[in-house]
């Protein structure tokens, strides 16, 4: 059994209105010096069996094309093998 964590973030040059809103709120609530906030998505995926070969490749493709939108987002993917 494997656990895959996919983090999806808007590309740096794309406007992130959510991040901006959070940045504003953090400042109003007294946290000084916040220079940037970006808000992304995180997917935690539990998969039975080993994630290798074709399935791993497919997982990568899906992370890029389904879980993220390559036109505006970047993704990063980590496979944790030791998930219970």
């Amino acid at each position, binding site marked *: 059994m494997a656990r895959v964590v996919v983090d999806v973030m808007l590309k740096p040059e794309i406007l992130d*209105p*959510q991040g*901006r*809103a*959070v940045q*504003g*709120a953090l400042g*109003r*609530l007294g946290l000084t010096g916040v220079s940037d906030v970006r*808000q992304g998505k995180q997917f935690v995926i539990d998969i039975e069996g080993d994630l290798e070969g074709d399935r791993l490749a497919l997982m990568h493709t899906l992370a890029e094309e389904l879980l993220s939108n390559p036109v505006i987002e970047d993704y990063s993917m980590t496979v944790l093998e030791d998930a219970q």
Partner: protein
Amino acid sequence: MNPRVGVVTFPGSLDDRDAARAVRIAGGEPVALWHGDDDLRSVDAVVLPGGFSYGDYLRCGAIARFAPVMHSIVEGAKSGLPVLGICNGFQILCESHLLPGALTRNDSLHFICRDQRLRIEDTTSMWTSDYEPGDEIVIPLKNGEGGFVADEKTLDMLEGEGRVIARYLELNPNGSRRDIAGIRNERGNVVGLMPHPEHAVEALVGPTTDGLAFFTSVLNSLVGAA
């Protein structure tokens, strides 16, 4: 003198004009309240209207909760000020912990706008006293994050204490636990409701006028108390 009902405008509030109109049609005097101002202008009751306060970024209602006006409203609510949160207002009330639970993404994952049938379950609150228990009404519902959730214990408590004020009939539009459309606090002065009674006060522009009684309820409660 007509009771004064404050309607709060946050950046991104959308149904504030409509809520004020509903107050006026019900016979009250709407008073505009500004998010950045903690002065409640001696209103007798407050409506937190629908919309997308702060764009609904982060979580619906999460940022609005910290607005200066909310400090005063939370304090007022604790000493009995009637407060009605509609849609985004309901979300703000939950985020402010004036009401338990939270509102999450619709299970359909779509924003949904429909004429929704509800059953009024509790008429002891200040905002539902003009209804009869079991009344069925149809008012607009429009939200993207309207699924009411809470842990089982809280849900049982709400049911046990009769604090579910309205329930969805025919179709649960957003995956709310136990078909809950609205709840109240223990005292009955604070009510949160996902559908929009303020859009059902004029036959011409709403599906019904079934929503008007929310506003007449509080006006009558206030007059009765005075």
